[in-house]
């Protein structure tokens, strides 16, 4: 049974991405007790799935590593992974959350030696790589996962393979008797930081994501470019493994669209500008990128980044929202539409098409198990009516990492104020 010591002076942080980690650290480093709940088997959220960060193009490993170390060293933070909040009752200063914890089948003894993975034969979809590859049924969620602890997938539970996996472990870390459990966690304030998910590209019918292998999403492109991704960092297109040297990016795929997401997702212009660098990095002058856009929204100081990419002769900009994608005999996606600067009709084939998909809240405010005020897209609004439940990061807005961290710090401060009030009242 998992034990969580928490009181009305505890801050509950839901979601362990960069925002949740930041909020938890800020609060804990101010001396508050924190329980951090993460649905996945590891912290880090979607940032850990990026190849490089704009604007500096460094690897996410560096920023995340520092935060992981801070979490590890801080005794005030209790991390619960594979956990979800199913209910919140009470009022500011006195909440109780029900937290459902899924069995990991691996305990704290794990040294991440990997012997269990070698023993496993069954493979399952690799969620970390957006299901573009497979992993063994006993796996480490990702190379830099925190905690560095394996997971046994439920598909093998109850089979002889599970016993084989258990037998392979020299540290008595595999525990096949683990069960799903629900624990109650007290808290004075809640920071809700469950982040975002990519808009379901299958819903954008004219782009044929569901029909054409070589139409992929921007999040998949991050994994294709990463040396630790499914292709070892080679930009190979899915249909035939050919090098994708001529890549088109389609902006606002699902955003700014009354048929899909109404809002501008705010980061996807920068993401595509960044990804043209991946094409250049992989193929030099042989790598060509074309960005199809309504207008480029590189906000404030990101304008410099935009101008640099504009100066790259291997990157072309076409002002047009692509009307539809068809496929030619060689499996090349062909983009059809009309450009706004001159109204020229085009039908242009590419090796690979990347849809700059929009961001939507991973848990829409309507599905948060408490009364929460949200905007029409389901992002949490800052509102008195929310009591002491504060949205942070991409649960509140589509934001880049820098702004997500600012938003998380602000939420941590609000939560700390509530806790201070409780502390004074409780004496």
């Amino acid at each position: 049974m998992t034990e969580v010591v928490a009181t009305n002076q505890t801050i509950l942080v839901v979601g362990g991405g960069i925002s949740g980690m930041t909020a938890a650290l800020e609060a804990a480093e101010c001396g508050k007790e924190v329980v951090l709940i993460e649905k996945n088997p590891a912290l880090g959220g979607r940032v850990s799935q990026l190849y490089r960060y704009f604007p500096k193009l460094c690897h996410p490993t560096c920023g995340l590593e520092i935060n992981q170390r801070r979490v590890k060293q801080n005794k005030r933070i209790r991390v619960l992974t594979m956990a979800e909040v199913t209910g919140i009752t009470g009022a500011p200063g006195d909440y109780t959350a029900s937290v459902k914890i899924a069995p990991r089948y691996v305990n704290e003894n794990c040294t991440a030696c990997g012997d269990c993975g070698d023993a496993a034969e069954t493979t399952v979809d690799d969620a970390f790589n957006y299901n573009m590859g497979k992993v063994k049924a006993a796996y480490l969620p990702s190379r830099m996962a925190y905690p560095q602890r394996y997971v046994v997938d439920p598909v093998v539970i109850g089979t002889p393979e599970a016993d084989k996996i258990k037998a392979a472990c020299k540290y008595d870390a595999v525990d096949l008797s683990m069960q799903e459990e629900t624990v109650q966690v007290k808290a004075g304030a809640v920071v809700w930081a469950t982040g975002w998910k990519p808009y379901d590209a299958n819903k954008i019918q004219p782009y044929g994501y569901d029909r054409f292998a070589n139409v992929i999403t921007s999040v998949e492109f991050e994994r294709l470019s990463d040396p630790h991704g499914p292709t070892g960092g080679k930009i190979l297109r899915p249909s035939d493994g050919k090098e994708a040297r001529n890549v088109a990016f389609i902006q606002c795929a699902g955003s700014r669209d009354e048929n899909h997401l109404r809002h501008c997702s705010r980061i996807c212009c920068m993401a595509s500008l960044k990804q043209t660098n991946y094409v250049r990095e992989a193929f030099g002058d042989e790598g060509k990128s074309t960005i199809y856009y309504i207008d480029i929204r590189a906000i404030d100081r990101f304008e410099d980044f935009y101008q640099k990419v504009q100066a790259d002769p291997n990157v072309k900009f076409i002002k047009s929202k692509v009307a539809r994608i068809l496929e030619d005999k060689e499996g090349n996606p062909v983009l059809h539409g009309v450009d706004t600067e001159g109204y020229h009709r085009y039908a242009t084939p590419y090796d690979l098409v990347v849809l700059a998909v929009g961001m939507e809240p991973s848990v829409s405010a309507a599905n948060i198990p408490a009364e929460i005020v949200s905007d029409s897209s389901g992002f949490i609004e800052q509102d008195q009516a929310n009591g002491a439940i504060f949205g942070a990061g991409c649960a509140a807005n589509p934001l880049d990492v820098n702004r997500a961290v600012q938003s998380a710090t602000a939420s941590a401060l609000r939560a700390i104020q509530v806790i201070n009030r409780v502390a004074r009242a409780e004496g």
Partner: protein
Amino acid sequence: MSIEKYTRSFLKEVEERVEEGHWVKMCMQCGVCAGSCPLGPHWEHTPQKIFMMIRAGKREEVLSSDSMWMCTSCYQCIVRCPRKLPITHIMHGLAYLAKREGLAPKNQPTAQFGQLFWDNLTKTGRVNELKLSLGMYFKDGFSQGIKNAMAMQSVGLGMMKAKRLSPMEIMGGHGVKDKSGFQAMLKKARELEDSRRKLA
């Protein structure tokens, strides 16, 4: 005619005088309608272009364009437009304004058919299919009319079989009971429309 006061701002005129015209300003020029319209490659001004021309004040060019008349009301553009502009309705509204302002292109087949249909319908309150078809076949002269009628023979016979077309209609045809009441209703509707849309 008091259109002078509008000429400074064609967009404003469209907003006041064209059905759903107030939507034009919402167009963000993304190009999806132009790229999705099945007729797109065959006409001069796609909806995207028309909406930009309206904003640019190109009144003559827009109203004399033949593009609005080409629209088949397939609704592809409305379905796809990210801003949900009722594009089809605007296109038809523009065509109507063009016609009322006498700027619609001459001998435009859709416009001709529209007029024929309207005259046919409003005479008795019922469409006289036979006269409508004959009117359409013979609009370009007698010998072309015979050719058209021959080409459409099987369709005509099929319609007769299905009782959708009666040769007796040539005698005058069926109609509503209260023809003068019907005419008065149309007149009133037109008056209301004219005053609302400032059509003279």
